[in-house]
């Protein structure tokens, strides 16, 4: 039902990406001894784990035929508010709850705008990204950059900076998030509904699926996951820069999601695809950083390889004029 459509016709995009990643991995592993050390592999995953967690959240919304461009903003402002509340003397646990509430509130607004006011997701979330950042920054925060100070020596700090048996916590959290979402999508009734809704919203609605509440759920989940990513980011660098809400990070997230084979048109893809996409980006970035490739060149190489992957996919699985969907951009 899901993700299988492409496989039936030929080599899946996922397969292509795995193949490309494997080739790159081998090249780096053979030429760079540092690259193949277990520590480096872990740090490779650690470096992309926040990206990966956000990508899982993005995949949730894309599978349900939406998109959430406000993920980065939610992540930044909710985590920043947690830090600020705690710096101002609030117990960190309570601050976390309030921060989660803020993230869910933004997710709820997204959902309401998309489900009930029927504003296209791409615009609703784009506008909310801007408005939410603006609201929190101007009404709640004292600075762009909020340091982790008061909660420096509590359990909170461990979220993004500790490790279990040598495996960094961000990697573990990425794995947990991926697993939970995977189970949700695969086995929960609501997860199956999400695929049905993404595949064909009208049919889902006629069948009696609660489309609108499902859309709400989808954006609430995404917001909660983004909040977790924010905590990891804040605790791993001891601060959070809210300006990241206005960066192009969200494009990277979309790329990661789509490169692994999650269809932008909805209804297709699994968490596995997101992991594949994340690892590919991780291998590329890590390898190039070891090679001391300048940042701009890294960008070019990364994008060219991504472009190659989608071209190969398009050649292997051409879209048909008769079956392509209108408005599927």
């Amino acid at each position, binding site marked *: 039902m899901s993700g299988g459509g492409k496989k039936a016709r030929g080599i899946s995009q996922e397969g292509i990406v795995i193949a490309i990643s494997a080739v790159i991995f081998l090249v780096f592993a053979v030429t760079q001894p540092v690259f193949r050390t277990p520590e480096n592999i872990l740090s490779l995953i650690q470096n992309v784990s926040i990206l990966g967690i956000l990508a899982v959240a993005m995949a949730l919304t894309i599978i349900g035929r939406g998109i959430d461009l406000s993920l980065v903003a939610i992540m930044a402002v909710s985590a920043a508010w947690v830090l600020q509340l705690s710096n101002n003397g609030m117990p960190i646990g309570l601050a976390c709850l309030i921060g989660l509430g803020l993230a869910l509130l933004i997710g709820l607004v997204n959902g309401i705008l998309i489900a009930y006011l029927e504003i296209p997701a791409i615009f609703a979330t784009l506008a909310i990204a801007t408005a939410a950042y603006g609201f929190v920054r101007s009404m709640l925060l004292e600075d762009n950059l909020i340091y982790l100070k008061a909660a420096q020596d509590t359990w909170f700090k461990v979220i993004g900076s500790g490790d279990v048996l040598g495996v960094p916590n961000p990697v573990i959290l990425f794995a947990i998030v991926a697993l939970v979402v995977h189970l949700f999508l695969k086995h929960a009734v609501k997860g199956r509904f999400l695929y049905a809704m993404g595949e064909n919203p009208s049919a889902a609605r006629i069948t009696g699926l609660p489309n609108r509440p499902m859309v709400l759920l989808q954006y609430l989940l995404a917001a909660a996951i983004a909040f977790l990513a924010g905590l990891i980011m804040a605790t791993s660098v001891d601060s959070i820069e809210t300006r990241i809400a206005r960066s192009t990070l969200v494009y990277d997230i979309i790329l990661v999601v789509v490169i692994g084979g999650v269809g*932008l048109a909805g209804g297709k893809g699994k968490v596995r695809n997101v992991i594949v996409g994340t690892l590919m980006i991780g291998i590329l970035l890590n390898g190039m950083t070891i090679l001391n490739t300048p940042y701009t060149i890294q960008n070019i190489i990364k994008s060219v390889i991504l*472009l190659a992957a989608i071209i190969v996919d398009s050649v292997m699985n051409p879209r048909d004029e008769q079956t392509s969907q209108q408005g599927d*951009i």
Partner: protein
Amino acid sequence: MSFRRSLARARYKYVPDHVLGELLSKNWVDNAIPVLILVLTLVVLGSLLDGLVSVSSLLGMSAQYGEVLLVTIGMTVVLLAGGIDLSVGSVFALANFVMLALFNMMGLPIGVAIFGALACGAAVGAVNGILIGYLKLRAFLTTLVSMIIVRAIVDMLLLSYAVKIANPVTESAFWDFISFETLWGLPFSFLAAAVVAIAGHVLLTRLRPGWRILAVGGSRRSAYNAGLPVKRTVASTYVISGVLAALAGVFYASRLNAAGSGTGAGLEIVALTAAVVGGNSLGGGRGSIFKAVLGAVIVLLVTNSVIRLGLPAGGDSLVLGLILLLAVGIDVKWVKNRSKLVSRVYVSPAHMELSERPETAEGSGSPYALNDKLADVELIGLGQIDGPEDPVLDEDGNIYAGTRHGDIIRFRAPDFAEPEVFVHIGGHPLGLTFDRDGNLLACIAGMGVYSISPQREIRKLTDQTNRSLTSIIDDSRMRLADDLDVAPDGRIFFSEATVRFDMSDWMVDALEARGNGRIISFDPASGKTRTILPNLRFPNGICMCRDGESFLFAQTWGCSISRYWFAGPKTGKVDVVVPDLPGYPDNINRASDGGYWVALVGMRTPAFDLILKNPALRKRMVERVAPDEWLFPNMNYGCVVKIDIDGTVTDCLWDRSGTNHPMITSMREHKGWLYLGGVSNNRIGRYRIPGADPEWTAAKSYRGEAA
């Protein structure tokens, strides 16, 4: 009571209810929302900021506006074809860099430098276009990647050349002019954007490539199946977008003479926002350049004002986000509900009071009394023809009739066995007649008046008349040309039943009972088309009187027949010949005894006569009841009436069972037979007229050979 009634009559006569629906169904009404947002923006921001709405302030924005507009137009064209171009910001930065590098650093001539910059934009656009149009990659993803690649290339180049390219090694009067001077107080970039906007408007509304873009965006699959070059069209939109973004980048170079990593960053969001706030839809097909112009104004006003408001950090983002949300929200609701709104308000009934309905009961002694004369009608082409509204016979006795499929079918005399397609013409051919040279003239619903020669050559006679100044609907085009006749001087007079409804909804016009129709004359000698009698209640049949100076015409919803003089001493006068028919008259044709046959397409009913007096009731009905349940005039049962020139009824033919001819829209006498047509029948009837002149034909009558 009677005062109330005359009050109601006056109210429905003078209050133009129909205007609202006509306004809402105009395409340009889509622009109402962005215009409203613009006005709101101006009012709110203008009151918050002194001097925002001033010439100097607006002029201060005009250079930036020119650049944003160029990019927005490019984005709009891509959106219209169903794509999206996220690479515009990077292309903008690339063109800016190339322009400065070629001109400032390498000292190339200004023309070469500008061409180089535009070529870079075109190249990126072409890459996007080939990938998306020909290789069918996804637009969002592809342009996202090309945005990142181009941006990275620009950053890399900047690293080495950022400082060098800012110091010009050469000079150019033209470049200095673009950079510093203004024409009529306006910067060059603004004027260039205005020219591009006008060109783009012409392209999209008047030229074939533009129509193709809209067709592909509207429905890619249909465009592909219709044989349009979908791939090329899609690809070309990205090239357009690339070139326009590059042009904007060139103007940016002239304005700031600098390149940095922030140049053009986020421009894709600005352009996308502008395009959508202006009312262009994501996903294609719906939009215009004017909307892009409006959207760009709104976005620029808001962003610049927000900076000037001096809000606390982040406040600007809050305001921008909310405005974007509001604009898109309103637009979405508008697009979704506009058609619902139009269908609710479009039908606007008018007041009408018919006089007493003449008796039709059998044995009542009324001239309209029911009989069964049509019981034994012969049937021609049963099941082989669909909707012969007005069959006509040539001198050899062959029958010609239009069909709903846009054909004119011919049944050959004498046995009328097999139909053949005489011509395929399109539309729904309604009233037919022969002119003196044997050409078949046809009124075609949705198209106009056409002439078909005996050699089957189709020629358009007219499809538009003079536009009346007070009409909101474009009444110059012909929506429902219905019946026609040719005057002795060669002029063609034809009726257009209604200017407010298409053929498919012609019955809804009855609910309005307003004078929505008109009679138009076309003079083949001068080629001029003129409306001569406006505001008629569904004018239908037209038939020349034998005096050569006047014709009879029927008003279907008016249940009357009138006579209009187009020549002679009474020129321009209208007389009512039959004021109160028991049914709805359709076509009128000459009879062999000097009278005129009139088809009654349906019979009046007391219920419908009653609600005609109550427009408010009809309005409520249209608003609240499903169309299937609307009370319509009875169109299931009719008859043929023969009148003389004074309106006296001399004969009446009924089909009591209603099986042979359930609906009669026309009848033609030919050599002692009466041929019957019906716009929703699947047959032509043939009735032997007792005692009629067996040699009489309409053609002879028009030539004046017989009475």
